[in-house]
């Protein structure tokens, strides 16, 4: 009967399909000891990836059982979400970069494998060379769960061509005159915008969404997002109110910074100054505008530095934990740390000298490196981080949105932020 025959054929096909799908797998299964590792990162920058692959190739030479080490860039602004979704689905990478603001969540979750033992017993690793202050965020119960391969201070890149065009003094001159503070900087930025129509100052990656980058600004007022123990909201403290009022005026009255919805990319020549990390130096073109790199301006409470950190850890879910640990130890050993230092300042004290950094950092002068990088790492405050980071960050962001309007009541908005996040901080 025709229907029966059609049915039999369909059933056979379906069975075959399901069998095939059950056998086929998306991941690598270790057959005869061959291993491939996947490392999730958030940078798709060619220079960065070239360097990583160079290090990986060297590692593979001495480890023939590793067939592939793949650096998998995930989109920057959804990196943590994507990584966590992969873990949730059981599709975790072997190694992963971790943002400092999600460090508390990852470190305490049990998703990462402790690194101390492997690192300490690797020959020539010199574990004691790691500056203890840089490790605190990544440790729990005395164990190190992720290695802070980058402690990157924030500095100010300046387009000196644009400043001269607007008839303003360069930072070098302002620093020499002892006037390198936010008041002056914002005035200069405002003048640049008035004269040239280009943006004066851009706090990169803020874009009215990434508020944690504002810590590069408000720390100068002695303000903080929350107390050191993470339990008390710092948004409606007087210091923060002062800082935000100044910021609001700079954006909406003085037009020193571009308003919401306006994009200005410093590295494309659309802004005179930008606050960002030194790893962005790779975006500077050799034949572009003349530029300088200087430390953050002083705030009313004096000079300060802010650092961002990035850690790399091994996922417990990985099928090749031992191999991953071994590779991590290799990638972060003294020799490779020196190579990576041109983009990612390591936590190694021996490497944090201007001469060493200058060797691998052709774009920056020794003076710049000393003032911005080394001093910054020594004294810098880390960007805000807290457990339950994703939800907390989103709440702050939503509650801060009313602030980015011309007539906003700064104090009221900040009070609103605190009432929104207090329940979350208490957890």
């Amino acid at each position: 009967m025709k229907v029966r025959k059609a049915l039999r054929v369909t059933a056979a096909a379906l069975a075959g399909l399901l069998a095939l799908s059950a056998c086929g797998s998306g991941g690598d299964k270790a057959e005869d000891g061959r291993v491939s590792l996947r490392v999730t990162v958030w940078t798709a920058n060619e220079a960065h990836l070239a360097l990583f692959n160079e290090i990986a190739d060297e590692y593979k030479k001495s480890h023939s059982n590793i067939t592939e080490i793949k650096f998998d860039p995930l989109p920057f602004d959804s990196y943590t979400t994507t990584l966590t979704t992969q873990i949730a689905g059981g599709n975790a990478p072997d190694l992963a970069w971790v943002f400092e603001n999600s460090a508390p969540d990852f470190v305490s979750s049990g998703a990462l494998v402790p690194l101390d033992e492997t690192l300490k017993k690797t020959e020539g690793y010199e574990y004691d060379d790691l500056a203890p202050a840089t490790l605190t965020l990544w440790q729990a119960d005395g164990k190190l769960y992720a290695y802070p391969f980058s402690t990157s201070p924030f500095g100010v890149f300046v387009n000196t061509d644009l400043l001269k065009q607007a008839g303003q003094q360069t930072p070098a001159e302002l620093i020499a005159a002892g006037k390198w503070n936010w008041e002056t900087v914002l005035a200069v930025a405002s003048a640049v915008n008035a004269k040239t129509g280009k943006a004066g100052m851009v706090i990169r990656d803020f874009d009215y969404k990434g508020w944690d980058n504002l810590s590069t600004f408000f720390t100068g007022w002695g303000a903080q997002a929350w107390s050191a123990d993470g339990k008390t909201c710092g948004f409606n403290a007087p210091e923060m109110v002062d800082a935000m009022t100044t910021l609001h005026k700079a954006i909406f009255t003085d037009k020193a910074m571009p308003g919401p919805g306006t994009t200005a990319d410093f590295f494309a020549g659309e802004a005179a100054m930008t606050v960002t990390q030194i790893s962005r130096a790779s975006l500077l073109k050799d034949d572009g505008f003349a530029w300088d790199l200087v430390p953050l301006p002083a705030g009313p409470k004096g000079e300060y530095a802010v650092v961002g950190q990035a850690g790399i850890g091994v996922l417990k879910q990985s099928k090749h934990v031992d191999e991953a640990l071994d590779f991590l130890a290799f990638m972060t050993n003294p020799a490779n740390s020196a190579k990576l230092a041109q983009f990612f300042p390591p936590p190694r004290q021996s490497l944090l000298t201007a001469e060493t950094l200058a060797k691998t950092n052709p774009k920056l002068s020794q003076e710049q490196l000393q003032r911005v990088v080394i001093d910054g790492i020594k004294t810098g405050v880390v960007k805000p981080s807290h457990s339950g980071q994703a939800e907390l960050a989103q709440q702050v962001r939503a509650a801060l949105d009313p602030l980015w309007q011309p007539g906003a009541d700064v104090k009221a908005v900040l009070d609103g932020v605190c009432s929104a996040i207090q329940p979350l901080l208490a957890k």
Partner: protein
Amino acid sequence: MAARTDSVAGLAGAQPTPGWAPATRPPFWTTRRRDHLAGYLFIAPQLIGCAVFVIAPLALVVWYSLHEWNVLAGTFTYVGADNYRALVNDPQLPGVLRATGLFSVGLVVFNLSLALLLAVLLNQRLRGTVVFRTVFFSPVVVSLVAWTIVWGFLLQDNGGINALLRVVGIDGPNWLRGGATAMVSVIVVQVFKNVGLNMVLFLAALQGVPAELYEAADIDGAGRMRQFWRITVPLISPTILLTSIITVIGSLQVFAQIAVLTQGGPGTSTTVLVYYLYQQAFQFHHFGYGSTLSILLFVIVLVLTVLQWQMRKRWVFHES
């Protein structure tokens, strides 16, 4: 079956064909049984597919909603109705539901009105309507993400739309950053994308209205508008109902535009239920609570659809 046999006999000239007349002992596989089997077999793939890919996941979602699932720590603990209690007490939920309601109502009203307007215009027997028809339909085939990205880019404070407005001397608002304008922007982007589909359906319906009715109305001295409301609308009411059901369901599922254009902001003004669900489940990793929100969304869709379907008795002119 009896009625069918009759009509076959009638068709074939009262000569029953072999296979229909019972033999001395009826075979097991009567035509009726064979037909039944064919019926089941034909729908089998769809039914099995629905069972596996729709019903089973739905059941699983209910199961998840009864647990607290921390992804990073890898814990999955049974919490009974806790998530549902949290749902009822969630301080953000009223705002989310309000945003969802505003969005859906705005979208459905705007979409259906515009679709009807365009269909009426295209039905006017003007030359070149085919070109306009293509134009109005074209966004439907353009990739959704591409469309949204282009609009996002045009809606920037220093983007194309404000640039055009400046040319005529208007200072355009910061579309994606103002509370109300953000919602309006997302609605407009979505409507212009899909209105072509409803427009075509209305057009087909309009063309099905017999011309004589209008002629008779002309003779009776009824004006255009009156004819529209008294003749056109009732006669195309089945289409209106159908498109409104589809559009309402669709409006509750709009996700990509919000994700690309506003990320639920400014504040939480464009955080509709589907986006809130995504945040809870995929960004904050509260998979258990996200599942609870999913059930809520499903219930809302179900209730609205049933309501609209019931209304057909009242609003639709005649049933086909």
